[in-house]
């Protein structure tokens, strides 16, 4: 029986009822991985031996009559910027090529308590800087729906693994869209929780005021269940929210009657792909027909979001990445004195995009430019956030595209960084405002590439986001599809 194409909640039931074993399931996922990974390249490292061992342990628990938690025995993938004790964590950078964390990220500790099975560590844009996974120092990841196209990024490996069947679910991180945009490009569901909802302890820092870990999965039900596992306050992350964690599966309800959905005109930008606009407008009409009330809204500072984000995120990155100096961990390239050593290390081991962002950040923070760039961006951030606060006085959620286009061809934008940055218009404002957002499949382009619908909620109101997304998903057939990878489907 084919198992790799099923969502986690179905597999969980089958495991609990002893219809399948975790060893059987894990073998099936690895055998699918053997078939497709050569064409996709989702992983930087696989941990097959450990995975089989953990699968056996879960089977023993089930045999002993123990109840198993949701993710127990279900193979998932971890973005390689999340620290895994004793397992290399490279951030897809040469500077961490041999870095083996001596501790687990809090999300890993939580997953281990749930007896999950980890397939491996997934590819990303180096230090999560990019939207196509082309900035990995190791290899390019291909979109399972069309291997000439990018999977999106920066969590491109995680999204491609879930979409190709080499993982049932995955964790990603989202600083400016890095969960939602690859989910959209790969036809899977990706959720960025509210800033602080999930502990960032052990997530390699890119931009600390924007980073957030979240699930990438086959459907909304899996996302809600994974969020139940990973959400919550953590003493090790002073920015994690102390708010109580609700049971998100209670929001898996098909009911949008009376739900007020805001449609921001600024998100339907000039140059938005026709197929994307059509799919999103159709999805909104469908939600309206299901009883939701659709309200036109304005988020007037949206045109400034890209500038704001691309000053703040690089400024934080420049600061965070100062730690890669060849002293306490990571690679070192020798030099005649300590400063030369640091320069040589950073110059030879960071990739082009990382250097570009470090320099943008240091420029924006440097004497003479701080007020004009960094401080100005922080003030505009306040105005962007106010736009949402105003909008949420009249609506419950906001719906819009996740990305202005479907996945594009590998190499199409790599030489034009600014053009690439402009692609992030629908996702970065949500990070600036700290809001929760989900991307779920809502159709395909004429060329057969997936399109994602984004639903954004109030701070800490993941529940309404999940309810709206679940309602849409359960009345459509776009979710839960696996790319068949040119007939590699068994």
């Amino acid at each position: 029986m084919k198992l790799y194409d099923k969502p986690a909640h179905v597999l969980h039931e089958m495991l609990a009822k002893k219809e399948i074993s975790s060893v059987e399931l894990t073998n099936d996922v690895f055998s699918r991985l053997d078939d497709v990974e050569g064409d996709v390249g989702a992983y930087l490292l696989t941990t097959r031996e450990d995975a089989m061992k953990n699968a056996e342990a879960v089977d023993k628990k089930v045999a002993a009559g123990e109840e198993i938690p949701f993710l127990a025995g279900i193979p998932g993938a971890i973005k390689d910027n999340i620290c895994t004790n004793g397992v290399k964590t490279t951030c897809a950078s040469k500077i961490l090529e041999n870095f083996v964390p001596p501790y687990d990220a809090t999300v890993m500790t939580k997953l281990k308590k749930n007896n999950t099975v980890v397939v491996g560590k997934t590819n990303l844009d180096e230090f999560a800087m990019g939207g196509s996974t082309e900035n990995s120092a190791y290899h390019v990841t291909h979109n399972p729906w069309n291997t000439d196209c990018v999977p999106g990024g920066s969590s491109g490996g995680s999204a491609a693994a879930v979409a190709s069947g080499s993982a049932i679910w995955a964790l990603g991180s989202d600083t400016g869209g890095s969960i939602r945009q690859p989910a959209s490009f790969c036809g899977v569901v990706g959720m960025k929780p509210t800033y602080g909802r999930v502990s960032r302890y052990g997530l390699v820092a890119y931009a600390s005021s924007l980073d957030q870990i979240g699930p990438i999965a086959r459907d909304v039900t899996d996302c809600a269940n994974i969020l139940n596992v990973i959400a919550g306050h953590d003493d090790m992350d002073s920015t994690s929210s102390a708010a109580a964690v609700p049971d998100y599966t209670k929001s898996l309800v098909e009911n949008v009657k009376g739900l007020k959905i805001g449609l921001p005109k600024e998100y339907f930008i000039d140059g938005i792909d026709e197929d994307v606009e059509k799919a999103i407008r159709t999805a909104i009409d469908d939600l309206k027909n299901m009883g939701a009330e659709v309200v036109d809204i304005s988020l007037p500072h949206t045109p400034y979001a890209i500038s704001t984000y691309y000053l703040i995120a690089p400024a934080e990155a420049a600061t965070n990445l100062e730690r890669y100096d060849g002293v306490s961990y990571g690679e070192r390239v020798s030099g005649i004195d300590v400063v030369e050593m640091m320069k040589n290390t950073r110059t030879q081991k960071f990739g082009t995009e990382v250097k570009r962002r470090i320099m943008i950040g240091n420029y924006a923070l440097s004497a003479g430019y701080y007020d004009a760039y960094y401080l100005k961006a922080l003030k505009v951030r306040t105005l962007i956030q106010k736009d949402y606060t105003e909008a949420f006085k009249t609506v419950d959620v906001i719906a819009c595209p996740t990305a202005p286009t479907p996945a594009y061809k590998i190499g199409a934008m790599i030489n034009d960084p600014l053009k690439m940055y402009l692609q992030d218009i629908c996702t970065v404002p949500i990070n600036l405002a700290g809001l929760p957002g989900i991307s779920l499949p809502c159709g395909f382009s004429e060329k057969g590439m997936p399109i994602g619908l984004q639903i954004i909620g109030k701070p800490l109101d993941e529940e309404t986001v999940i309810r709206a997304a679940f309602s849409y998903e359960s009345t459509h057939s776009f979710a839960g599809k696996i790319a068949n990878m040119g007939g590699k489907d068994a």
Partner: protein
Amino acid sequence: MKVSKEDMENVAQLSRLTIADDEAGMYTEQLSHFLDYVENLKSVDTDGVEPTTYALPIENVFRDDEVKASLPRKAALQNAPEEEDGYFKVPRVLEE
């Protein structure tokens, strides 16, 4: 805004990066292009607007001043490029 050669050198120095001669043109041009784009922020009236560093309210977090378990020295040093006698070792810092 055209970024000057001096500005580019200064920012590379602040970043502890060496820009090779054949890359200087590319980085300067891309940074200039980027700064032209972010000029649009100048048209936003931010008089009296407070800056936002964190989107959600963040408060100082305190805990009792108790000694807790921490990484053993060996584990903390396991990724060090060079170590000696339980310390991180670096090349010469001061001139002789």
